[in-house]
């Protein structure tokens, strides 16, 4: 059996998106800045895609800026809000400890440039408390950036409450919704979101394309200077085929969202149930307030990478918060933030599902994981100590 269960890493493009994109590459190759028919045809297609994306987000089309992906959108949003804040003497930024590196590293850099950054803790459930957000706000707070849904443990943050606080306190609010858009309902206007980042390849759209939504009236600075594309805020010839492919995928995702959410969440819950029978395991992140497709477990006494490689042998493609997968040796900052000790954080497994997965696949995973976990524990000196009682079980 072959099971792709790493949909938070990236998704397979939907046939609808591939078709839209291929058609575009063949037929709408013009540069929308060109005056001739081929260029103007491209401009029309671009406008249509912009309107489709705006509609899917509950935004106006002129609040949509196409970027090269989620990382660029995060960088531009945060840097922009920081710079405009600094102009008014506001140099304080608020975020959480569980953000994606595109957010955390941008904040780290701004810190070196003289900004002050408050990174809020999250609870053991992986969720930030809106009261903590409110308490952290200062006179000089320029931006609050908090992710919509976490990419590792899938927890959904209380975006509505946080956005309301930001609105009351008149602080710009950005959310990295890369993992959320296309999977759970998002409506930027209704939810009072000022800025939002998304990425095409997380909902069966193409890679290398994303969106930064910026509410009308919120100033935006350029990360990439040059031509007057995207109303002068993002230079570079527009990537029409990818934009069209993303718009098609997003439309499809939103149209099928209700149905998919139910179907995927059912598989998720069965998978959580099945893996919970493994002793000294634990589900990371709140069991209910999480993305429909996210399952994240820790198994004490084993290390994530070996688990992934053995699963891969069985045809199960998953990922891990484990350091080794990312070239760094530190365990996941997200798992540490929810209070896991280092040695446990190393033994994590992330299975992220989509509507293409089947209940049969879930049963197969439930059948295969325990054996692999046992095997790895058998060869693990840590497990030996734990079993002998020389060390205490943490979970």
């Amino acid at each position: 059996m072959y099971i792709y269960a790493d949909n938070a890493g990236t998704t397979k493009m939907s046939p609808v998106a591939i078709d839209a994109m291929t058609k575009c590459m063949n037929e709408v190759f013009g540069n929308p800045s060109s005056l001739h028919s081929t260029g103007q045809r491209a401009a029309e297609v671009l406008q249509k895609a912009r309107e489709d994306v705006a509609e899917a987000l509950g935004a106006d089309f002129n609040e949509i800026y196409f970027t090269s992906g989620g990382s660029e959108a995060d960088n531009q949003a945060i840097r922009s809000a920081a710079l405009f804040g600094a102009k008014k003497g506001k140099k304080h930024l608020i975020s959480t400890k569980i953000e994606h590196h595109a957010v955390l590293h941008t904040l780290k850099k701004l810190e070196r440039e003289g900004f002050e950054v408050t990174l809020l803790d999250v609870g053991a459930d992986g969720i930030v408390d809106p009261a903590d957000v409110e308490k952290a706000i200062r006179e000089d707070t320029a931006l609050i950036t908090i992710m919509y849904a976490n990419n590792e443990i899938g927890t959904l943050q209380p975006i509505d409450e946080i956005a309301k606080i930001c609105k009351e306190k008149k602080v710009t609010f950005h959310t990295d919704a890369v993992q959320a858009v296309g999977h759970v309902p998002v409506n930027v206007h209704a939810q009072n979101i000022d800025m939002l980042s998304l990425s095409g390849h997380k909902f069966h759209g193409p890679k290398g394309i994303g969106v930064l939504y910026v509410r009308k009236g919120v100033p935006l600075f350029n990360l990439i200077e040059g031509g007057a594309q995207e109303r002068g805020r993002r230079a570079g010839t527009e990537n029409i085929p990818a934009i069209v492919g993303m718009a098609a995928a997003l439309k499809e995702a939103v149209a099928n969202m209700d149905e998919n959410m139910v179907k995927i969440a059912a598989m998720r819950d069965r998978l959580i149930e099945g893996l919970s029978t493994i002793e000294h395991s634990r589900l990371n992140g709140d069991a209910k307030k999480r993305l429909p497709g996210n399952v994240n477990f820790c198994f004490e006494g084993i290390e994530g990478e070996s688990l992934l490689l053995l699963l891969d042998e069985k045809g199960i493609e998953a990922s891990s918060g484990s350091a080794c997968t990312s070239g760094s040796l530190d365990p996941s900052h997200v798992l540490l933030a929810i209070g896991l000790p280092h040695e446990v954080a190393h033994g994590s497994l992330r299975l992220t599902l989509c509507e293409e997965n089947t209940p049969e696949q879930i049963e197969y995973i439930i059948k295969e994981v325990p054996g692999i976990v046992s095997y790895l524990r058998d060869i693990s000196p840590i497990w030996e100590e734990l079993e002998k009682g020389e060390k205490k079980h943490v979970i």
Partner: protein
Amino acid sequence: MLYSEKVMDHFRNPRNLGKMDDADGIGEVGNAKCGDIMKMYIKVKDGIIEDVKFNTFGCGSAIASSSMATEMIKGKSIDDALELSNKAVVEALDGLPTHKIHCSVLAEEAVKAAVKDYYDKNGIAYDKEKFAPGSCPTCGE
């Protein structure tokens, strides 16, 4: 498409195009430096603009705006012609892209300049205020 069908129609088939040898008033506005000059000729009889012609150096919307403006004042009284606003030209063209609005301003000014020339040539007194050299909203000239 950048331009409406109306704009393209007036661009492709400009109305009242050409020079007029026996014009009663000639107005020229714009400036080659910024890429647009309109020259408008009017023939006036009993306060009515009997005929009008134009020449334009400029973009598609400049040509279409001048064409539309001539159509809108032909056969009208001078007073009516002076009421012609760039807004009316834009509306008649089913809209212009934002950065092209100034072309319609030029069209309005070309009409005024032609009338002013007619007044000057015929020693007709007029309210100078009304003909204050409108500075171009785009380049300020």
